[in-house]
C-alpha cells in the first residue's frame, strides 16, 4: 500500500504559529473564556476586493491553505479536503439575525451564500481554478479527522498524489456565548477557552528527504473508557508497533469531565513518556485536533520540545514516532500515528 507523507503544515491559531517557528518557545496559556486567533496580514495572500466579503474562517482557511501549498511547492493539488465543525458560523449568524430583525424582509444574499459549510473548500478551488475532487466534512470533533482519512484513502488507493487537507473553525459572535455559558454552568465543563483557527497540510504519496509519514488514522464514534486500552493496542498492532515504540503523546485535554480518557490512554505507556497537551494554548474547538497534527509534525521535524512543557525530561535520544489522541465529551475518538522517516 502507498505510504502517506506530510509535506507541509501551516496553522493560524491563538498562538503566533503562522509566521515562523518561534512560537514554540513563546507559548502562553490562555485563561480567557474565548481565544481569538492571531491573524496574519491577509492582504499578503488575498486581494483586498475578495477580503472585504470574506468571514474570518474563510480568510484563515484560504490563507493557511495558500501557504501550505507554497511550502510544499505544489501549484495545484489533486484534491481539496476541508473539515469544519461549526462551518461558517459568522455568516450564518449574520443571515439569521437579519431574518429575525427584519422579519424575513429586505434580505441580501451575500451572508447566505457564504454560510454554506463548503465555502472554504470552494473558495480555495476557485482561487486555484482547481477542478479536482473536492469535499467537506462537518462531523463535530471528527471533522478534520474525516478529511484526513479521505486524504489517506485517496493516496493509498492511488486516486491522488498531492492532497490539500485542512480544518477550519471560527468563533463567530453570538452562538459561541451560548456554548460557553453551558460549559460554565457545568462544574465538569470545558475549562480551556473556546478557540478558533485554520490548519492546513499538503499530504503526498512522494517520500521526500526528512519526510514525516502519516502512518495511520482511525476514528470511533463511540468508545467506552474500558475499551480504550484494547483499541489502542489493536491500532498499534495493526501498524506493527509496540507501546514502547511510541516516543511522545499529543493529547487533547480540555479540562472537562472527560479528560480521564486521556489518563486512561496514558496509563498504557511508561510513566516517563513524553506527553504534551495543546488546548490550553489554542483553545477547544471542533477542529482543534488539526493543531495536534501540526505540532506533532513540527516536533518530528525539529526534534525540539521546550523543557518547560514537559513533566519529565525526554528519556529517548530522538523522537521518531508520535501518537495523537483526541475525543470530545467522551465520544468521537481519534487516534493518529506520525513517524519520521
Amino acid at each position: 500500500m502507498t505510504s502517506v507523507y506530510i509535506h507541509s503544515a501551516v496553522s493560524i491559531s491563538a498562538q503566533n504559529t503562522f509566521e515562523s517557528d518561534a512560537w514554540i518557545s513563546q507559548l502562553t496559556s490562555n485563561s480567557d473564556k474565548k481565544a481569538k486567533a492571531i491573524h496574519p496580514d491577509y492582504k499578503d495572500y488575498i486581494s483586498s476586493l475578495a477580503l472585504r466579503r470574506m468571514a474570518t474562517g474563510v480568510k484563515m482557511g484560504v490563507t493557511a491553505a495558500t501557504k501550505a501549498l507554497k511550502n510544499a511547492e505544489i501549484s495545484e493539488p489533486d484534491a481539496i479536503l476541508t473539515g469544519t465543525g461549526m462551518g461558517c458560523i459568522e455568516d450564518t449568524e449574520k443571515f439569521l439575525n437579519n431574518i429575525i430583525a427584519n422579519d424575513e424582509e429586505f434580505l441580501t444574499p451575500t451572508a447566505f451564500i457564504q454560510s454554506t459549510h463548503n465555502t472554504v473548500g470552494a473558495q480555495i478551488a476557485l482561487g486555484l481554478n482547481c477542478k479536482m475532487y473536492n469535499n467537506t466534512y462537518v462531523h463535530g470533533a471528527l471533522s478534520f479527522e474525516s478529511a484526513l482519512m479521505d486524504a489517506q484513502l485517496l493516496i493509498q488507493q492511488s486516486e491522488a498524489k498531492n492532497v490539500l487537507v485542512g480544518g477550519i473553525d471560527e468563533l463567530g459572535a453570538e452562538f459561541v456565548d451560548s456554548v460557553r455559558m453551558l460549559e460554565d454552568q457545568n462544574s465538569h465543563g470545558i475549562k480551556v477557552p473556546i478557540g478558533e483557527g485554520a490548519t492546513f497540510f499538503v499530504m503526498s504519496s512522494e517520500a521526500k528527504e526528512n519526510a514525516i509519514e502519516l502512518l495511520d488514522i482511525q476514528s470511533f464514534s463511540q468508545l467506552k473508557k474500558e475499551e480504550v486500552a484494547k483499541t489502542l493496542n489493536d491500532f498499534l498492532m495493526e501498524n506493527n508497533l509496540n507501546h514502547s515504540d511510541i516516543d511522545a503523546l499529543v493529547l487533547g485535554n480540555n479540562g472537562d469531565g472527560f479528560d480521564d480518557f486521556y489518563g486512561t490512554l496514558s496509563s498504557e505507556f511508561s510513566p516517563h513518556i513524553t506527553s504534551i497537551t495543546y488546548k490550553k494554548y489554542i483553545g477547544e474547538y471542533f477542529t482543534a485536533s488539526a493543531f495536534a497534527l501540526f505540532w506533532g509534525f513540527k516536533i518530528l521535524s525539529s526534534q525540539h520540545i521546550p523543557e518547560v512543557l514537559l513533566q519529565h525530561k525526554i528519556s529517548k535520544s530522538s523522537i521518531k514516532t508520535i501518537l495523537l489522541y483526541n475525543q470530545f465529551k467522551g465520544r468521537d475518538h481519534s487516534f493518529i500515528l506520525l513517524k519520521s522517516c
Partner: protein
Amino acid sequence: MPSTEKNKAKNRVAITGMGIISAIGNTLEDNRTSLLSSTSGIGDLTHIHSKQAAHIKVGEVKLTNDELTTQLQLPKDTNFTRTALLGLMASKEAIKNATIKDMNEVRTGFISATTVGGMDKTEVHFKEFRTQSETQKYISSHHAGDSTQKIADALGVTDFVTTISTACSSSANAIMLGARLIKAGTLDRVIVGGTDALSKFTINGFKTLMILSDERCAPFDADRKGLNLGESAAYLVLESNDMALKNNKKVLAYLSGYGNANDAFHQTASSDTGEGAYLAMLKALKFANLDASQIDYVNAHGTATPNNDLSESVAIQRVFGEKVPDFSSTKVFTGHTLAAAGAVEAVFCILGLQEQIVFPNLNFKTRIPEIGLEPVTTLKQKKIQHILSNSFGFGGNCSSLIFSKP
C-alpha cells in the same frame, strides 16, 4: 492495486437496502406508488410559519415533528431536530430493508449528509438560548454532525461515522465515500445518505437569490421560474459484493461508478460550459468502465433554475453528443431536498431499475431554445441497465453516480 479491472469486479459495491421519507411518501413503498402514479408532492408550506409561504411551493414531508417523535418512540422531551427525525425514519427503513439483524457482526459505518443540520430549531430559539433553559437542549443540536451522531447511536453504529456537507451534492458524496471505503476494504458495510429539513433559513436564503418558483417547478422548460425547496431523508446500505453474495443477500443494484469534480467558476452559479458537471459525469463513466452510449437514463440534477438547467444541459450534450439518452428531473415530485437530493434520487434510480421505468419530468412544456433537449414527460417503460444520476451544489461541487441493474 485496487484500480485494476480484476479488483474492480471483485470489490463491486452492492446496494442491499434503502429507505426514504419525502414529500411523496413516508416509506419506500409510498414513494414507489407516487412515482408510478406520477403524483407530485409539491404544495403549500404548512409546518413553518414564514412570510414567504404565500409566494412559494415546497415539498414537505407530511408528518409533524410530534408524529415523527411518536412513530420513532422517542421521549417527548427529546432534542432531536427535524433533520435528525427524518434521518432516523429513513435510515431505520433502510436497515430493515437490508435485513440487518446485528449491526456489529461486520465492520459497519454510517455516513450522512446535511446542509441545515439543526437550523430548524436554532432559528426558532436563537434569541432565547441565553435566558430560557428549556431551549438550551437545542444548542448542542445545532452543528451539522449532531443528527448523524443521533442516528448512528440509535442504529447502534459505533465505529466509523461522519458527516459531509457540500451543499446540494452532499449525499452523492456520502454515497461515494461509502463506496470507496468498501472498495478499500476499510468497511464491510456502510449506511450512506442524507437528511435535510425545511427551514426559514434556507427558504429565505434561496429567496434572496431569486431562484424560488411560486408555482410547481418545471425543470428543463424554456419558461422555468426556479426551484421548489423540499425536505427529505434517504439512505442506502452498501456492502461488498463478496459479502452480500456470501450471505445470500438480495442485491437491489450495483453502484458501478462515481465522479466528483469542482466547477471552480463561482460560489453559487454554474459555468456556461457546465465544466464541473461534465468532468463529474466523465469520471463516473470512466470509473464504471462504461461508454456514454451504455447509459439508458440520466436522472438529472434539474433544479429548474434558469442557470442550472442550461448549464447541465450543455454538460449533458458535451458528454453524450448527438445521442442524449432519456433524461428527467424527479425534483418535480419531491422539490429540491438539498443535501438529501443525491440519496433521494439514488433511491429513485434503483426503483427505476427495478420497475424498468423512467419517471417523468412533469410540468415540462417547451424546449430550451438554445439547447433543444426534451426530457421524458410521461412514465416510460423500457429496458434499463445503467442509470447516471447528477447532483451539483453551491461552491461548484459536482458529483455523478452510476447505478446498474444486478
